[in-house]
């Protein structure tokens, strides 16, 4: 019942979020919020010399869905190139917001669990908040250079 939305992996990431905090010497720090429910999140990233995401961390005052999704996002985004991270993010957002169910190629493993949020339309914004922050931070970081 509660597990329809709050699966074990989600609860695990929500209670022990990975990559929590703020990266040193960030290339971008972005703030995202959902004024409807009060979720707030700050994401910081640093790119390496090869242009890939070398470090990524977040701090949030948010619900379990937002927390877990952002935590999984940081795990998946770390080490990726900007292009890869952008593709991953847009595929994730499409998975939750497209009218028809999508067949995402890049959304694998733990991340696939969040597909259940589709059935709770009021919670989709919670699950996508961290990903929108990722997209914004990638734009922000490319401006810097």
């Amino acid at each position, binding site marked *: 019942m*509660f597990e329809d939305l*709050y699966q074990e992996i989600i*609860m695990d990431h929500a209670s022990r979020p990975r990559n929590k905090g703020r990266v040193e010497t960030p290339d971008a720090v972005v703030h995202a919020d959902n004024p409807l*429910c*009060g*979720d707030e999140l700050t994401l910081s990233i640093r790119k390496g010399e090869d242009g890939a995401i070398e470090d990524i961390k977040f701090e949030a005052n948010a*619900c379990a*869905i937002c927390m877990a999704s952002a935590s999984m996002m940081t795990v998946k985004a770390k080490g990726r190139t900007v292009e890869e991270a952008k593709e991953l993010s847009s595929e994730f957002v499409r998975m939750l917001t497209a009218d028809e169910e999508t067949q995402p190629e890049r959304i694998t493993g733990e991340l696939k669990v969040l597909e259940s949020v589709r059935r709770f339309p009021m919670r989709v914004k*919670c699950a996508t908040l961290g990903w929108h922050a990722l997209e914004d931070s990638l734009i922000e970081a490319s401006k810097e250079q």
Partner: protein
Amino acid sequence: MLQAQHPMIGYRNDFPALNQRVAGHPLIYFDNAATTQKPEQVIEAISDYYRYDNANVHRGVHELSQRATQAYEGVRPKLLTFFDAGSDYSVIFTRGVTEGINLLAQTIGKQRCVEGDTILLTELEHHSNLVPWQMLAKETGARLDFIPVDENGVLLLDQLESQLSQGVKLVSLTHISNTLGTVNPVQEIIELAHKAGALVIVDGAQSCGHSPISLKEMNPDFYVFSGHKMMGPMGVGGVIGRTSLLESMPPWQGGGEMISRVEYHDFQANEVPQQFEAGTPNVEGVVGLGAALDYLESIGMDRIQEYESELTGYGYEALTQLSGLTLYGPNPDEVEERGATLSFTMPTIHAHDLVSMMDMKGVALRGGHHCNQPLMRKLGVPATVRASFAFYNTKDEMDSMISALKEVISFFRR
């Protein structure tokens, strides 16, 4: 036996929407501060209006137009009786409280406030009784001041006289807090404000459907209410104001109905109340509101208040038994009156998750800032869960909410 437990059980059956299951559980509707459910009588009145009487009001001579006009106009005196307003008050129909306050800000607000004047609000206000005044302040150069609240959300009135002496032209305050359930001593504040030469607007969104109101006793200059918070339909409400003040106010929106004579370059405004009701009004809404007033009167607002107060006290007590839970707003045992709204947080469960999980148990609660962002910031809370009641709710439902909350808490402890 059930009858004895719940004196309102007969009335509860008048609300078809309450009789359904959500997520496999009987619906427990505890979001009444947002909007109440509607009884059969209101739903029937609206569909009968469209079935038999629909026509545009005021302009037509034909039978249907007369019937529609009578039905529409007949609700004004009904409202004056319901809110025990003396003969010196008039009713302006609006879409609800928000539109009513915007109307007042843009008419009497603009007329009375110039640069340096003060508009006095409280720290409890819903955004709808805050943002219209911020807009007016930006337009006119007037400043906003606030009656502060203590940590329980009770107004601190010891500085009120000194606050009122700072060039206050208007005081606008809520009767009952939509988040904390605080009942403000409006009568006392109105008396002091009048002594200081200020006009007073009372936001009645949370009192109109829950407390017996006597405007004669309260003596505000304007009382603003919403139909959908008192068993009536959405999109209708009004301003009940002192007729002499309404007559001195400039018109608001322009259009048909609000004029008595129009030329290419000028117009003459109609009389009060039509002056403030441009365009075809929400006749269906007003008719439904009339049915809601009849319905509430058939129960009695005293009985409703008494029952809801008992229910709220019962819920407050039960919630304090849950360890770790923090309740906001005044303790019902420590105040004379308490609105039927309970706000709380759990230390490890975000309000949004709690509300989602309670929905999976069929319990309709609300989580968030409740259109009260500055107040929440002051209390240092990101978001609360709010349970708000009406007379059709029961202690059994309260018990079910508590046991569902316990399940959520134990799920999060795993």
